[in-house]
């Protein structure tokens, strides 16, 4: 089974090429000598046959959503509908220059306005901006808006942001990028926010809180109304990390919970492709009083024409243009396909699937949260790691051998030997049963023969890679 592939550069044959352009039809000149490149870049020299074979082989070495169960917790790896890609490639979207006159892009403005209306309604916000290119970018935009808000009010002392210890690492890093200070909040034994603990870390320098709800443990913060009230009463703002919206879309709204600003990962809840890590979209939404701080130009309608409008109070540009428009269009197509009754049903099915699989797996595995979960749950391999040296990583590698993607490993940090499982709504009961049977079989096999634990994966094209050497003596490009 093991099979590594040659690199493009190793397949290169001098002077081989495919011609894509016609002969130049104007006078041919030379680049002025003092600017001219002396040696051509060493790009591969290949024919189209070589290229297609190469990428077809690389694709075969990639595990995609349609290869099997893909339960990466917190990543919402749901099915990516084909129609969404088709509409995004229509020439009237794909071939539009970003600096065309406004009267020539009214269809795009109208689509973005539709997406704005639907997502504002789903989140309980007043307006959205599609400029941020990814979730972390949306977090950054939101925290920048908080910063600007306090600057405008002359409250520049407000630089403290509360973050629970279960939060994703991007949250604290974002705070740092905004020149603000992180106040770490310890979760209680249930994995939730302790209201008394929260009160104890608040002072006059509070800028706000960053929260995910349901949180990264798949648990809904039931005290959410009290939490946001405590923050507001102390003069702070509440930011909602939309990574886990898939549990509650169309059922509860972050805006109603008291949040002032949110980011959404359109590539999670709204099914746009993950692309091996991107491009995604980190659309953000806010309440009316923060609107003027949104990044980039905003779309507004004047008479019958949509146009861009820039606010002097805006935090400014975060990318050169207006964000990942072709991704936003895909998300809109997804919302239109589900509609008003479908969106809440989608979340209910996601939560049902998670609870069903959790129930099945609890026959063998320790689950962090014994009660009903939201759209994801955490297995802890702490006991097995201790007794049999059978770690979360070993379990994950064994799962790969079964033709399935492994769950997210070692996150959140507050649960030892964590495997975070998020099945999403686009799996059927029969798949969940199959998965549960496989997980249990792996478990039983390894507990009976603990030496197996370190031998997985056996069926993948490489065995476990040496990550330590990769980091210690980095090779990050091909050297001839």
């Amino acid at each position, binding site marked *: 089974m093991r099979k590594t*592939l040659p690199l*493009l550069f190793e397949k290169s044959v001098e002077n081989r090429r495919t011609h*894509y352009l016609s002969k130049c039809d*104007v006078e041919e000149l030379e*680049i002025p000598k003092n600017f001219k*490149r*002396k040696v051509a870049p060493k*790009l591969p020299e*290949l024919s189209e046959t070589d*290229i297609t074979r190469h990428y077809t082989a*690389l694709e075969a*070495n990639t*595990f995609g959503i*349609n290869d099997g169960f893909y339960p990466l917790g917190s*990543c919402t790896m749901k099915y990516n509908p084909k129609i969404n890609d088709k509409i995004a*490639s*229509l020439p*009237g979207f794909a071939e*539009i*220059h970003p600096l065309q006159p406004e009267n*020539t*892009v009214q*269809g795009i403005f109208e689509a973005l306005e539709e997406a704005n209306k*639907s997502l504002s309604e789903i989140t309980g916000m007043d307006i959205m901006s599609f400029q941020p*290119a*990814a979730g*972390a970018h949306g977090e*950054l935009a939101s925290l920048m808006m908080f910063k600007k808000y306090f600057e405008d009010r002359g409250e520049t002392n407000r630089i403290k942001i509360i973050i629970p210890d279960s939060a*994703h*690492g991007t949250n*604290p890093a974002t705070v740092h*990028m905004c020149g603000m200070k992180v106040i770490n909040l310890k979760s209680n034994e249930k994995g939730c926010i302790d209201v008394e603990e929260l009160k104890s870390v608040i002072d006059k320098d509070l800028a706000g809180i960053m929260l995910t709800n349901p949180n990264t443990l798949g648990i809904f913060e039931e005290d959410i109304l009290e939490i946001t009230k405590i923050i507001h009463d102390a003069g702070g703002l509440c930011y909602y990390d939309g990574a886990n919206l898939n549990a509650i879309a169309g059922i*509860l709204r972050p805006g*109603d919970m008291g949040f002032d600003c949110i980011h959404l990962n359109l590539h999670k809840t709204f099914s746009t492709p993950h*692309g*091996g*890590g*991107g*491009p995604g979209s980190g659309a953000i939404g806010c309440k009316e009083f923060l609107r003027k701080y949104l990044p980039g130009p905003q779309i507004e309608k004047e008479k019958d024409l949509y146009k861009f409008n820039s606010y002097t109070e805006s935090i400014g*540009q*975060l990318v*050169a*243009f207006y964000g990942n428009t072709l991704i936003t269009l895909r998300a809109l197509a997804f919302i*239109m*396909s589900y*509609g008003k009754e479908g969106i809440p*049903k989608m979340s209910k099915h996601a939560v*049902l699937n998670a609870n069903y699989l959790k129930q099945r797996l609890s026959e063998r595995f320790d689950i962090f949260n014994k009660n009903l979960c939201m759209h994801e749950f955490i297995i802890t391999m702490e006991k097995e790691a201790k007794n049999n040296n059978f770690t979360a990583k070993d379990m994950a590698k064994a799962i790969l051998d079964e033709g399935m993607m492994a769950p997210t490993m070692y996150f959140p940090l507050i649960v030892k030997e964590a495997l975070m499982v998020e099945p999403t709504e*686009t*799996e*059927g009961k029969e798949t969940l049963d199959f998965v549960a049977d496989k997980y249990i079989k792996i478990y039983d096999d390894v507990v009976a023969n603990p030496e197996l634990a370190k031998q997985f994966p056996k069926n993948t094209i*490489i*065995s*476990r*890679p040496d990550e330590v050497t*990769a*980091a210690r003596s*980095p090779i*990050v490009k*091909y050297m001839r």
Partner: protein
Amino acid sequence: MAYLLNTDEQVKEMLDTLGLKTLEELYDYLPKELIIDELNIPEALGEIDVLRSFQNLSAKNKVFSSIFRGAGSYRHYIPAVVPEMANKERFKTAYTPYQAEVSQGTLQSIFEFQTMICELTGMDVANASVYDGASAAAEAVSMCRDRKKKRAYISGGVNPRVINTVKTYSWSFNAPVEILEQTKDGLVDIDALEKTEHTDIAALLIEQPNYYGLFEDVSKIVEVAHKKGIKVIVKVNPIAAAVVESVGECGADIAVGEGQPLGIPLGFGGPYLGFMACKKNLLRAIPGRIVGETKDEEGNRAYVLTLQAREQHIRRETAGSNLCSNQALCAITASVYMSSMGPKGMEDVAMQCYNKAHYLANELGKIGFKLRYNSEFFHEFVTESPCDIEKLNRYLENNNILGGLPIENNGILWCATEMNTKHDIDNLVSLCKEVL
């Protein structure tokens, strides 16, 4: 309902297993006052009508048959093989390659991308890509800052949208930014840089070719900047980079750029592809994902995400950046483009851009559109306008042509690429003449 799988019967079986009667009971323990009655959005549409709606919206946008506008977004020819390969289902639907054993395809393609970006820029290390060229520039500036040196200089010849993005990030980080006004030739003011009295300048950001299409003397700028302990970041056009001396060879510390010209459609500005490369000594300072080569337990060559100790999920609030993704699908697109073109094809594209832009400038000059700057240019240039620009562009628009971009002081920023035939250019010039 759309893409759900479980039938009513299956839902019932699953609820039974959980001891529940209805789906709503899954939410019973949540605060009642937060549960909404209904969602105020339109009813679901079948795929047939979703498609129709978007076809209607698409028809309300104008696809120009001829484009003479760039300014950070360029229409180039995209060989059919590029989207066909890059959009393969697994590349498209996979996530960040955390599980290396089943992600060698994505990892290897990123490793190849990093290598090609290093070749184009003359650098030692490239990351797996960032959001776009502007955010890449902003991240690069942050990367140069340390406790003592926080100030950034940006040449006034840099794309204004990039300048704005760097300003946003810098304001957020409480770090000062100064614009170095360009000379009357439209270039970096090397004298002013030499004379600066600031001692806390972390980085200088320039562009090659710059926003006005002009070639900068990067080596000279680097020499002066380095004497003052300033790191130099150059934003490069990847097509020009195929024929212009690499900024790495010129001594620059970091190269960033917008990868859109490498096979990515105009798409109203996104998704695009930011690339970022640097010299070896900055390896552990560069943000974003990086793929490295290693071996598996049996000694087979293998690729992994590496140098993660730099990243936010480990360093949390001490991380220099919160980047936790890349634009892998766009990076694959660019890789397929670069490898399909090869070194000779890339040179061909670059030289056709150069030749056509010079032909266009020459023809426009004949009818009174004078060049604003006296410097050498690549595929963009600025002319004064002998007529009302708005009127001119409206006239061109009615003839299905997107004219040059109006810029400050009654100037026009023109662009030509291999997509503009001689016939196109002659037609444009004769239409311009009609407006005069």
